[in-house]
């Protein structure tokens, strides 16, 4: 799939995300929107995972460490044939449903449960170590949020990833600069993430994380880089795609009103049309 078609798909999936949230009575909509293009590029262009090979020992490993962006992950997993979108919309957050608000590895295609922040990178380090021990070619990807980086365990994993020179490991930071209480720089200063990861011994790529092309190029570059793990600082917009929610901390977890819902979908449709016409 070329990046233009991927861009069109991205707008359709954003609508799916909002529909899932409306059906379930709420969700982490802001972070869903900032991370969606990262997930889309990974699943459509870089990961070798398919529904037919979810148990293949050579499949790439993916961990959504910012597990609260589950609605975006559902939309992408459904678009890639792992899950049934209609079933997700019908049962998301419902009594007895497997479609909960964080990754559930009883569902096909999901490797690890998450939800509590700061777990993914140490687990990813273990997966990358296993690949090396077994001489297997797969790569491991861990997607984190920027607020998540306040968790000390992230930096334990960062330390180990560099210590073991795991160039088969790629971390992504969804740098949308907002967390539930407000701007990350007000809650707990993070700048410069680029300098911090570099100081920990990682290869650092800082890109426009809303851009499918920039993300695609960054993942390709990471796969080529030898000797160090790579972190992609994906500079994104929380709530990306609609002025109703962009850069608004209050949309970290939210259920749109009917009026907001209609405006969001109208914004998505307009952005998609603009995309279609270049």
């Amino acid at each position, binding site marked *: 799939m070329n990046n233009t078609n991927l861009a069109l798909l991205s707008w359709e999936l954003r609508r799916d995300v909002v529909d899932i949230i409306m059906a379930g009575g709420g969700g982490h909509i802001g972070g869903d929107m900032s991370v969606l293009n990262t997930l889309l590029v990974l699943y459509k262009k870089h990961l070798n995972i398919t529904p037919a090979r979810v148990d293949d020992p050579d499949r790439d*490993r993916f961990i959504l460490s910012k597990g609260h962006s589950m609605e975006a992950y559902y939309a992408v997993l459904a678009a890639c044939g792992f899950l049934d979108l209609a079933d997700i919309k019908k049962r998301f957050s419902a009594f007895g449903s497997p479609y909960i608000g964080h990754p559930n*590895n009883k569902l096909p295609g999901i490797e690890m449960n998450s939800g509590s922040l700061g*777990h993914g990178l*140490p687990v990813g380090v*273990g997966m990358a170590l296993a690949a090396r021990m077994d001489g297997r070619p797969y790569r491991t990807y861990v997607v984190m949020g920027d607020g998540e980086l306040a968790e000390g365990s992230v930096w334990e994993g960062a330390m*180990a990833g560099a210590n073991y020179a795991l160039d088969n490991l790629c971390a992504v930071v969804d740098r949308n600069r907002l967390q539930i209480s407000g701007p990350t720089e007000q809650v707990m200063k993070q700048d410069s993430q680029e300098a911090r990861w570099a100081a920990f011994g990682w290869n650092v790529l800082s890109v426009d994380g809303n851009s499918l092309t920039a993300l695609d190029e960054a993942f390709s570059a990471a796969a080529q880089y030898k000797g160090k793990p790579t972190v992609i600082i994906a500079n994104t917009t929380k709530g990306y795609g609609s002025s109703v929610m962009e850069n608004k901390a209050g949309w970290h977890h939210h259920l749109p009103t009917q009026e907001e819902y209609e405006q969001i979908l109208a914004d998505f449709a307009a952005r998609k049309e603009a995309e279609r016409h270049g």
Partner: protein
Amino acid sequence: MANKIPNRQMICDVLMRHAKTDKDLVVLCSDSRGSASLTKFAEAFPAQFVEAGIAEQDLVGMAAGLARCGKKAFAASPACFLTTRSYEQAKVDCAYSGTNVKLIGISGGISYGALGMSHHSAQDIAAMSAIPNMRVYLPSDRFQTACLVEALLQDTLPAYVRVGRNPVEDVYAEGAVPFTMDKATWLCHGSDIAILACGEMVRPALDAAEMLKHQGIGTTVLDVYGIKPLDTASVIQAAVGAKVVLTVEEHSPFGGLGAAVAQVVGANCPRKVVNLALPDAPVITGTSQEVFKHYGLDAAGIAKTAVQILH
């Protein structure tokens, strides 16, 4: 003391025996290879050993990642840190995600003696037992420890194992250990009192039974090395066959063996259940044996409590 071999060394021996042929067996430590008696493993199998540094959350997270990719991961770290600092990794990455990680808590209970409460793990049974899909084991001697590790190598579920730092007197004879996974071991039978013990408390419980015999008191001793899943059938059988039940454990009075046994006995065959445990306070400074004696957790203290509750 006749035995000079701590339980932790037996774990290393079993793992080394298997690592020769099982290349999926991986051991992880958190700057703890020496205290876990795993230095020999690290030297013999460097490709199957992962050093996490002093980073217990990373230790357990990495173990889970390795396990998700087919490895049989044994993560060994002092029980005090493993069951508190990395508690959430045990809960989420091991138990919830269902990864084949065996958490080996070394120098458990009050093994570290005079190092103080930061180094004691008198809460580990309660904490780990409360996690769904996590099993909890406290083997009583070196030979049972070896049997337990052999059994754990055969399954793919997460588990927590606590062993002490120091050698303990043997409960069993080499090559003749009655061991069935997840079944408590009957050590002696008597109709007056049933003593249910785990870990390092089993040997003094057995010695207490011998003292009580000389006083004409018939004692059952059950080695409940598996706290979760608990062998409820044996617990009920032991309680039914005695007038009172005494539990003995190197643990807080809350959420340990005593609580589990009282729950089962209360629901199935009500009997008086008395729990001998560490106090709900930082323990007094001393060696393990000094501390045990102080709190009545040695053979004489157990026998004394047994007599008191019988009369």
